[in-house]
């Protein structure tokens, strides 16, 4: 690293499900970019050697007894990080699409602005190269939906490259969306008057594997997320009325 950084109490978490082909390389790159920063892989009940590959690459592994889905895996990581007393947690994907050299940018923003959540955005410096047309269409749709709810624009609401501070950790440890969590998590934070920021990050092709969101699943994804957003708004409004 070109400059000395204050990592504070930072944990990198990587939720992984059947990522044996890429997880080792992602961990090695993370260790190179941030030597000494602990890396926790949450193995979401993989049927392959993901956990073993992660351990041999130098990460600690939180092994879930069975497959919970992305939200359940990420929340398990947040719960553990909160219990262990970490102040900041940054999540990257296990497929190698996120460049760990961008992690310091997210951490800097969390520390400098005091916001509760920072999103590594793929669309801030022009369109990302490695996202499909359908995905970009979906992102644009959710940008439009979220704009009035969040009160400010969000460029990449579906990004899995996310950093949170301890306040957000506490909230997410108690309540976190289980499927397709990124967009709902934003609404959960906004309802608690938390702030989020975005920083531009690089996107690379996957080291291995394919996206789990197919064309058919994307329709379910949109409906599921829209319903989740609506439910979160209603929950919050009900609580506000009760007060």
């Amino acid at each position, binding site marked *: 690293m070109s400059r000395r950084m204050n990592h504070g109490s930072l944990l990198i978490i990587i939720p992984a499900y059947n990522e044996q082909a890429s997880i080792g390389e992602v961990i090695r790159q993370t260790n190179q970019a941030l030597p000494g920063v602990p890396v926790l892989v949450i193995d979401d009940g993989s049927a392959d050697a993901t956990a073993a590959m992660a351990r041999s690459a130098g990460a600690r592994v939180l092994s*879930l007894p069975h497959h919970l889905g992305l939200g359940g895996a990420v929340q398990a990581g947040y*719960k553990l990080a909160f219990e262990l007393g970490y102040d900041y947690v940054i999540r990257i994907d296990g497929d190698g699409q996120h460049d760990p050299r961008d992690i310091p940018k997210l951490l800097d923003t969390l520390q400098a602005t005091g916001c509760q959540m920072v999103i590594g955005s793929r669309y801030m410096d022009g369109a990302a190269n490695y996202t499909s047309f359908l995905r970009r269409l979906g992102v644009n749709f959710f940008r439009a939906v979220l704009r009035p709810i969040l009160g400010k624009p969000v460029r990449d609401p579906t990004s899995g490259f996310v950093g949170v501070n301890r306040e957000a950790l506490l909230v997410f440890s108690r309540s976190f969306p289980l499927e397709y969590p990124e967009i709902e998590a934003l609404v959960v934070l906004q309802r608690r008057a938390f702030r989020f920021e975005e920083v531009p990050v690089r996107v690379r092709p996957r080291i291995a594997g394919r996206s789990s969101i197919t064309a058919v699943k994307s329709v379910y994804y949109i409906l599921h997320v829209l319903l989740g957003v609506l439910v979160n708004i209603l929950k919050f409004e009900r609580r506000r009325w009760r007060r």
Partner: protein
Amino acid sequence: MERLLNAMTVLSLVLILLVLRSLRRAHIRVEYSVSWLGAATAVLVLSRWHKALDWLGLRLGIQDAALALVFTVGCLFLIVFYRFSIVISHLKDANISLAQRVAILEFHLQSLHENKEKIGISS
């Protein structure tokens, strides 16, 4: 119409027997059998009690008593399905929390073992 009502009677009896058999073999828990038994008993009673069925048909605006029974059966089973959706959702939430807790406890245990080994090696 009578044939449909007879079929409903047989169906409800089969359902009651099936649920009781599952209960005896511990394939279904008592608290989850109540909804099925309640719904099946209601269908059995209505399919044999024509006066009640006629009254129900009149209230629902359905002239054919058998159709009124089919409609009632549909409603009853929708309620049962809804109840089980709630039960399944609660169970899923509990299952996720438990799985996370088990994994976290295992992680702490592993860390303790590693620390013990480190201390053992250094001393």
